[in-house]
């Protein structure tokens, strides 16, 4: 399993639009992708799970990937967060 931590800088937090983009991005991997905040984990391929975390600006999230393409997934997702959130 691979993981990274990231502090959200987008002033609106993970609102609908980036949540949608994240789900789209995560759905492209074979690995299990999870996003978590304060120990609470959600499936990053599910929009309700991601939005349900209610991640706000300044909060730290952890992303994990487990599966055959976990290396690519984690590198690309980290880039995604830097560019979008």
């Amino acid at each position, binding site marked *: 399993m691979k993981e990274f931590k990231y502090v959200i*800088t987008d*002033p*609106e*937090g993970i*609102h*609908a*639009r980036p*949540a*949608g983009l994240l*789900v*789209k991005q995560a759905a492209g991997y074979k690995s299990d992708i999870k996003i978590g905040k304060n120990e609470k984990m959600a*499936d990053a*391929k*599910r*929009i*309700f*799970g991601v*939005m*349900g975390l*209610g991640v*706000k600006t300044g909060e730290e999230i952890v992303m994990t990937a487990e599966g055959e393409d976990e290396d690519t997934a984690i590198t690309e997702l980290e880039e995604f967060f*830097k*560019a979008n959130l």
Partner: protein
Amino acid sequence: MITLTGKSVFGGVSIGKLSFYKRNQKVIKRSHVDDVEAECTRFQEAKATAVSQLQELYNKAIEDVGEANAMIFEIHQMMLEDLDYIESIENIIRTQEVNAEFAVATTADNFAQMFASMDDAYMQGRAADVKDVSERVLDILCGVGEGVKQTDELSIIAADDLAPSETVQLDKSKVLGFATMYGSSNSHTAILARTMNIPAVIGLGESLSPQYDGQMAVIDGFTGTLYIDPDEETLAVMQEKREKDLAQKALLEQLKGKENVTKSGQKINVYANIGNVSDVGAVLKNDAGGIGLFRSEFLYLENDTLPTEEQQFSVYKQVAENMAGKKVIIRTLDIGADKQVDYFDLDKEENPALGYRAIRICLTRTEIFKTQLRALYRAAMFGNISIMFPMIISIKEIHKIKEIIAEVKEELKAEGIPYKEDVELGVMIETPASVMISRELAKEVDYFSVGTNDLTQYTLAIDRQNSKLDEFYDPHHPAVLAMIKMAADNAHAEGKWIGICGELGADLKLTEEFLKMGLDELSVSPSMVLPLRKRIRECE
């Protein structure tokens, strides 16, 4: 006459009958089913239909309101495809042996409840999205067909609130305006109404009762007022206001999407000047090709303290995103002279126009400048931002600016904060000095933009704050025009572009002259974009 006030989301005046939005009434009953698998299939089919309807709506919305605003319908599709949502519905069908309608309605309530109980207003508002998508599935399951029955008459649509999908689906040729009881100016519906150019007032409260269905009404979208059963005087005033607005919109219809091209085929960019984020709507509405001057001062003037990097970043990012790839030229801080800010503690000066202002402040109080540059370089990731420096008089200043930019990038890199490496840099041509060294300046930067107000003031040595000098102040003075021509020739000699962002750019008597000089861009106030386009198209 009844007068209701709410919040305006789009300017414009509409006069017509109120028509209350009638939703298809569905009563969802719980009923027992024997074949739960068949019921799950029924749900799956309804869901697939709903997803393909949303895909159509998405395509329609891209055309109507642009990709960024249309994305909500893509998110709606994701909600329907969400496994938690689907599993919940199928689970209810299987374990309780009930009909799909009941399972969908129950799941919708549960998920909406989850959002409603979150501790932030934005997420609470998303409960409406869950309901909206679920309603669609329910409509299909109940076989009531999509959407609403609109009356065939032109009317002002009144409702408690409208879901984004409802707004987009309306036959807009029959909609005069929107009036709703609830809703926020940041709701998707408000954004869509704005982008579709439909006068709309929201948040009118519960006094907007269905008993007024069919009555005459006037929406004044400029003030956020709804008049029901207006008296003659109000009607006359509103009619006049409406005609003025329509004349402007007619010009828009006629010229929107048309090129800024002369009869002989010479092209020029027409951009708009803005002083606040809220002006971006007017820029898009008037079909400007970009923002030629975004005065960043408002960020400093609005607050009692220096705006933070995050505040600035969020504003620049928002403008860049809203302009969706079109050029956004942001001018760095230009205070001093006639624009004073208390917390800067600037000394009183004998000659403020010739004093400590603009880039001179930035280059001596570099911490202020750096904060702004950090925000700009970060925001440049989100659109086509270019940066412009005011009041330049020497090459040395450009070198100093570039040094500071290099430091800023180095710091961002070290902190692991993403920024754009290559941002277009330009200077304002507003001092005679900058004109005289324009050949050298053009080697250093990507473009020039002429600030004609200051250039005139400095060229003619006339204080523009002193109204006694008005008779001597001649913006058409040959010296000023010669300055512009010289800067243009030097820019072009170095393969760089040049525009005007001062008031002279909107002076239709000079348009022909500017075209002859070969200027590449004119940036004017949003309301002047179309009159200027009209003038350009009349030129030879």
